[in-house]
C-alpha cells in the first residue's frame, strides 16, 4: 500500500514535470522561430533594365541581356532635373523611409558603405553619380543587415517592376521613379558599366544592397540591384 501511494505520488510529480518542461520548451522554440529573420531573396532577373529603348541612343544594348521576357515598364520618362542632393528616400512597397547621406569611394576603389555609428542603417547616395532626377544613373545603396540585425534595405528583395521609389531632394523637389528591373549579380562578375553607366541620357535610379549570403565563407557573394527611371516630379 505505502509503496503504491509512493509510486502514484512519484508518477504525478513526473507527469507535472514532464508537462511543464514540454510546454515551456515549446514556447521557447516558438519564440525563437518567430525571431528568425532572413532577407527576402531577390529574383535573379525580372524586368528590363533600359526602360524605353527609344529614349536615348546611348542605351547600352548589353544592359538588357539576360532579362526575362517581361514587357518593359511603360510610362513616360520625366524631363531631367538640375543638380540637388538627395535627402530622403521612400519605398512604400517595403516600408522604407530613410535619410540619405552622401558617400564616396573606399580606398580599394569600391563604393564606400555607411560605417558603424549613427549612420550605419541609413541609405547612402554615391556623390559622384548624378543627383536623383539628373540625366544618367543616380546610385543609392543601403545595408541589407549589420551586426545589429536587419538594416535599411533588408527587404529590397521584395521590390518588383512597377513599384514606386520617391527621393526628396534638398531643393524641395521629390523625384518619383518607377522600377523597371531587379537583378541579382554575383560580386565577382559585377557589371559595373551596366550599374554605374549605361543609359546616360535618361534620369535613372539604381538601388544596391547585398544578397546571396554564403555561410561557408560568412560573406554575401551577391549584390541585388534595382533599376528605376524617373517618371514624375513634384514639390
Amino acid at each position, binding site marked *: 500500500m505505502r509503496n503504491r501511494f509512493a509510486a502514484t505520488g512519484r508518477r504525478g510529480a*513526473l*507527469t507535472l*514535470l*514532464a508537462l*511543464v*518542461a*514540454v510546454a*515551456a*520548451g515549446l514556447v*521557447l*522554440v516558438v*519564440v*525563437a522561430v518567430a525571431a*528568425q*529573420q*532572413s532577407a527576402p531573396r531577390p529574383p535573379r532577373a525580372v524586368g528590363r533594365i533600359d526602360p524605353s529603348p527609344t529614349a*536615348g541612343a*546611348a542605351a547600352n544594348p548589353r544592359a538588357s541581356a539576360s532579362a526575362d521576357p517581361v514587357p518593359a515598364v511603360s510610362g513616360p520618362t520625366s524631363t*531631367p532635373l*538640375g*543638380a540637388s542632393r538627395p535627402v530622403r528616400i521612400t519605398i512604400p512597397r517595403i516600408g522604407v523611409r530613410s535619410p540619405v547621406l552622401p558617400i564616396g*569611394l573606399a580606398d*580599394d*576603389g*569600391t563604393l564606400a*558603405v555607411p560605417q558603424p555609428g549613427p549612420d550605419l542603417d541609413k541609405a547612402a547616395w554615391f556623390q*559622384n*553619380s*548624378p*543627383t536623383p532626377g*539628373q*540625366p*544618367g544613373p543616380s*546610385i543609392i*545603396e543601403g*545595408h*541589407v*543587415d*549589420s*551586426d545589429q*540585425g*536587419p*538594416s535599411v534595405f*533588408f527587404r529590397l528583395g521584395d521590390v518588383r517592376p512597377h513599384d514606386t521609389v520617391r527621393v526628396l531632394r534638398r531643393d524641395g523637389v521629390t523625384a518619383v521613379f518607377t522600377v523597371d528591373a531587379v537583378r541579382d*549579380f554575383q*560580386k*565577382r*562578375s559585377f557589371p*559595373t*558599366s551596366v550599374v*554605374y*553607366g549605361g543609359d*546616360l*541620357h535618361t534620369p535613372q535610379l539604381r538601388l*544596391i*544592397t547585398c544578397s546571396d*549570403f554564403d555561410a561557408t565563407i560568412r*560573406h*554575401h557573394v551577391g*549584390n541585388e540591384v534595382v533599376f528605376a527611371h524617373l517618371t514624375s516630379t513634384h514639390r
Partner: protein
Amino acid sequence: MRKSLRALVPIAAAAVPFAVLAGPASADTGTSYQTTLNALNHSSGSGMATVTVHGNQADVKVSWSGLAAQFNGGDYPHVQHIHIGGQGACPTIADDKNNDGVISTTEGGPAYGGIGTTLSTKGDTSPKAGTDIKIAPAGGSTDYSRTITLSNDTMQSLQAGTGVIVVHGLDPATLSKQAQKEKSDLVPSLPLAATSPALCGALSSMPSGGVATGTGSTAGVEQLGTFALGGGLLALGGAAFATRRRVSAGR
C-alpha cells in the same frame, strides 16, 4: 639573370594564375571614369559622361541636353574636350578675371587645364581639332559614343584625377551686353559665346566591383540560446515522461 633568380621564374610564373584570381575580378575589364556635366555660365544644360579605358583605347560616352540648339541658322556646333593638366576642377565665377560675367575658355584654364583630347564626331581627336566646328556634335542635345586612342598625356591626367570634360558653346542671348560684343579668346573670328564653356564635369573613378552592404547577421540562425534552452526543456520533458512510464511499468 643570376642563377638563383632564374630558379625563381617558374615559381613566379606559377603564382600568376593566383594573382589573377585574387585581383578585383569584374566582368568589365579596364578602368572607368565618370562625371556628371553641370552647367557653367548660366547655360541651362546638363548631362553625364563615362570614359572606359582599355590599354590606350577609350570608349567615351557623352550625353547632354538643354544647350543652345541654333547658331547662324544652323545646328549649333558644341566643341567638346577632355581637358588635362589643370586642377581637375570646374571653374567658378571667381575665375571671371575680366568681370564680363562669362568664364571664357582661357579664364577656366587654371581649373580644368588645356585640351588633351578633342571629343570630335569623326577624324582627328588631337588638341589641334579642338576648335574644328565641322566635326563637333551639333544641336541642343547629343548622345555621343566613340572609341578613340588616348594620348599619353590624357591617360596620365585621367589617372591623376585631373581629367575634366568640357562642352563649349553658349546661347549668345544669355550673355551680358558687354560679353555679346566680345570676340572668342580661341577663335577670334567667332563671338565669345561660341567657344565659352557651357558644361563641365571633373572625371573621377567609377566604383569598381560590387558593394559590401551586409554582414550576414540575419543570414544564419538567430536566438541560438533560446533554441538551446527550449530544446533542453523538451528533452527534460521527454525524459520525465519516460521515467514516469518506467515507474508505472514497475508497479
